[in-house]
């Protein structure tokens, strides 16, 4: 607890005054010669326990009243009710969720959740954490930033609005790392978030590690500051599958447009959507009924000359400004190039057949088979999808570095099981033992239909995965997200978890008839390959779509020019964090465009359930502070009133206890008992 007038606390020893006065009074008693000691002894014996307790209570209340008076006069500050139980920490770590959803605001005041967090935390820390070491870690950069002046917190670029997504487990892990490296002493971790499910990844295995890390630190207290959802109506816009088509009428831009509504009202609304293509602005009125408007294949005519360029779609200001803009870029379609590294001709041919089959008209599909002794022939720059049917290269080998670079640049890598034993690992992934069945195929129990290579079709129809048969599979280890599992819990297909922008998959079988029916039951095989190819194709296209994040522009590695952004004036540190259109200039002269948009997961409004939250922080010294955007209350407030009221209550209780016993008509009247008096009369 902090005090605005701590000097007055010097007077606290005066709380002993009631005790001193009591002792003085005890010594100032009169002395009398007394005959009727027998009555005194009886009375004293009868009242000993209660009277003593009463006296102790009265004295305690008097001491308490004086203490509370001095506390009230010292003008104590409390960070809500929390600070009442803890002193000043040595270090305060602020973990700030800067995701797009934190920009939810109250329309009247323009105050967003993020700005409220920053303002209130700055106020709290200024008042209560003087002398503490303040460090900010934001979800967009994950970089610890020391703060010298709490009041200046709101002016730091690290607390500015972004349209990124947040990864709360990563944010907490970064805090744990900071605690590991810095001797931070007693630490308060303020985690400010809006509890969006997509940001918290409650199913992630990282939580287990975090719990064990944080629960062993007895000097760390976790304070979760969260804001409930506002009632402001909000619309969010996103764009996908942007294609530039040529037709006899001219050049056309085709896209899938999605507008989501977050509102209690689901009636019909006319919404003006502003389209800006290569600087030319048009407005289209769109009618929304229900929670969502989806326009697949929305077409905009580009005339005859706009072969490439950029565009942005804007919604009017509403309950969240961070999801009102979506950027797009367009250019010639990229060549979908697949490279298969394999010495097995059957496998390679099956892959080539599927990868070369066109999905879209006007798009070129190329494949190339490279044997293990020809690895130098791999055209890394042009490859969108790489099948690695070979032993995993040694960690420090050049080919290992190239594979890593391939994935980090946003392309796709699929590991296929090599025939021989293999003990090396990459991305934490490692091959294990072969399994095979003589007669009946391994029964399939489950596959992931929500996302990934085996997800349902756009119309919601599931792929015929159940028709597949697996006879020979190879186990693998590492951290991964299962996509296909057998009844014996063996994983046949999985997405390897890696911190790269590209995807890494592991297939535990081969498209050979002695291994599986992948090639013969071709639908699933074909879809899987083209989905993997599509993921990697964006990285080789000259019109690329990326998600906001600190790595959004760094990954390109080349000089770039910001064409347009959702922010008013974008600082260098904010590039990549806000929706924007960027032109990258390559030394080869092969320039390309990048559209950076917020991750679609930010439009998911589901929140972490309170029970889930409790289980996430089980075993950790954790408290939750829930606040409202329009509460107007401060996290740090003067609590002298509390002390004053407590003092008044103490004095009241003291007065009640000090009241003389109820005056009763004594049985003795003028020295005679009533009975005697009546007898006399």
């Amino acid at each position: 607890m902090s005090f605005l007038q701590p000097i007055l606390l010097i007077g606290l020893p005066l709380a002993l005054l009631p005790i001193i006065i009591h002792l003085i009074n005890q010594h100032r008693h009169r002395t009398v010669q007394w005959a009727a000691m027998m009555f005194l002894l009886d009375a004293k014996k009868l009242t000993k326990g209660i009277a003593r307790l009463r006296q102790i209570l009265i004295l305690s209340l008097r001491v308490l009243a004086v203490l509370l008076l001095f506390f009230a006069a010292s003008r104590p500050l409390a960070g809500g009710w929390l600070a009442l139980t803890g002193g000043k920490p040595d270090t305060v770590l602020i973990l700030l969720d800067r995701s797009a959803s934190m920009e939810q605001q109250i329309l009247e005041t323009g105050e967003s959740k993020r700005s409220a967090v920053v303002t209130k935390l700055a106020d709290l820390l200024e008042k209560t954490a003087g002398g503490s070491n303040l460090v900010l870690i934001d979800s967009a950069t994950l970089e610890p930033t020391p703060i010298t002046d709490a009041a200046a917190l709101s002016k730091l670029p690290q607390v500015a609005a972004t349209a990124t997504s947040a990864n709360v487990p990563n944010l907490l892990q970064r805090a744990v790392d900071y605690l590991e490296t810095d001797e931070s002493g007693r630490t308060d971790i303020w985690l400010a978030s809006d509890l969006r499910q997509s940001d918290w990844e409650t199913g992630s295995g990282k939580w287990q590690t975090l719990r064990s890390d944080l629960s062993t630190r007895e000097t760390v207290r976790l304070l979760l500051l969260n804001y409930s959802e506002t009632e402001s109506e909000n619309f969010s816009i996103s764009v996908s599958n942007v294609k530039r088509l040529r037709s006899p009428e001219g050049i056309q831009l085709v896209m899938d447009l999605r507008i989501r509504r977050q509102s209690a009202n689901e009636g019909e609304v006319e919404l003006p959507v502003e389209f800006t293509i290569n600087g030319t602005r048009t407005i289209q009125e769109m009618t929304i009924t229900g929670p969502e408007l989806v326009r697949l294949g929305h077409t905009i005519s580009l005339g005859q000359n706009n072969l490439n360029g950029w565009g942005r779609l804007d919604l009017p200001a509403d309950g969240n400004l961070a999801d009102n803009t979506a950027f797009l870029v367009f250019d010639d379609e990229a060549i979908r190039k697949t490279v298969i590294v394999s010495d097995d001709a059957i496998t390679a041919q099956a892959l080539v057949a599927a990868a070369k089959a066109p999905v879209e008209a006007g798009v070129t599909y190329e494949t190339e088979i490279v044997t293990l002794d020809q690895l130098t022939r791999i055209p890394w720059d042009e490859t969108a999808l790489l099948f690695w049917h070979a032993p995993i290269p040694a960690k420090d080998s050049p080919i290992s570095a190239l594979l890593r670079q391939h994935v980090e640049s946003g392309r796709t890598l699929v590991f296929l099981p090599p025939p021989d034993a293999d003990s090396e690992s990459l991305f934490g992934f490692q091959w294990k033992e072969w399994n095979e069945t003589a007669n009946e195929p391994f029964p399939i129990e489950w596959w992931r239909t929500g996302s990934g290579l085996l997800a349902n079709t756009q119309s919601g129809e599931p792929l015929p995965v159940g028709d597949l048969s697996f006879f020979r599979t190879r186990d693998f280890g590492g951290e991964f997200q299962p996509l296909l599992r057998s009844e014996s819990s063996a994983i046949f297909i999985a997405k390897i978890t890696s911190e790269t922008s590209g995807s890494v998959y592991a297939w535990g079988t081969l498209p050979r008839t002695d291994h599986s029916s992948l090639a013969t039951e071709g639908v699933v095989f074909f879809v899987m390959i083209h989905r993997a190819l599509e993921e990697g194709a964006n990285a080789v296209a000259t019109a690329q779509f990326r998600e906001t994040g600190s790595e959004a522009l760094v990954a390109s590695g080349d000089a770039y020019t910001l064409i347009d952004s959702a922010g008013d004036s974008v600082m260098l540190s904010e590039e990549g964090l806000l929706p924007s259109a960027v032109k990258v200039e390559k030394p080869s002269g092969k320039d390309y465009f990048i559209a950076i948009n917020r991750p679609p997961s930010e439009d998911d409004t589901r929140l972490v359930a309170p029970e889930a939250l409790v289980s996430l922080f089980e075993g950790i010294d954790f408290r939750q502070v829930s606040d409202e955007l329009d509460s107007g209350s401060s996290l740090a407030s003067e609590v002298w009133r509390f002390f004053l009221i407590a003092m008044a209550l103490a004095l009241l209780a003291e007065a009640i206890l000090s009241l003389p016993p109820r005056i009763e008509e004594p049985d003795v009247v003028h020295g005679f008992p009533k009975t005697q008096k009546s007898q006399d009369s």
Partner: protein
Amino acid sequence: MLGSVSGRHRSPVKGSALEFAQYRKYVPGDDTRRLDWRTWGRTDRYYIKEFEADTNLRQCFIVDTSGSMGYETTDTTRLDYARSIAGTLAYLTVHGGDAAGLYAGAKSEDGNIFQQELPPKRGGIHLGVLLDQIAQLKSGGETALIPAIHAAAEKIPQRAMIVIISDLLFDLDPLQEAFDHLRFRKHDVVLFHLLDREEIDFSFDRPTRFLDLEGGPSLLADPSLIQRKYREAVSDYLAQVDRIVNHSVIDYHRAFLDEPYEQVLARFLIGRNPKTARSAR
């Protein structure tokens, strides 16, 4: 009262004396000398003429001289008050031709119960000695009234009026037995119970250290905390006294030290006169 000499006090025994009492029928065995021949002459029946016989009084004072009798009010001590009552009554008794004696004391180190012991006698010289002894009474030590009563009951061989003057500030349980002992010896028992109003009301208003007049440990107490219980204890005590004196048919007089002792004595004397007592009732 019965006695061996003629005194001022009317005897409960009817006999031959100067003052006529009543006639009653003759029954065989009566002294024929007491037949009233005049009545026989008028009525031809035998009547015995009876007269009230006067007798002398033996009055013994048992005065409690324990430490608690030294309790002092603004202008007197409890023992002074006891002296006044005993002295006055002794004077009246002896001047009335009756005998008076004194048994006074408390528990002493040598085991003696009585500080002063003077058997009842008549005469002016004896009165002088008795008053001297009453004047020399000193308070101190623990109370020994109960053994004193028992001892006095054994020492006084003839029926007498036993006047007990005490504050009765001790355990009252054995008191009933002591009174019964006196009653068994056919003594007429009078009890003057001396109390101070402060002892009853307990109206102290600030912490006070109470020093025991009988040498017990002192006690520091906040009167406001124990006043209620103290009064309850006093009330119970007085009720117990009432029960004992009623049961033993004791002539009981409660006296407060701020009350003139003359009033107390007047109340006592009026109560003892059958005529005035009847009219008072």
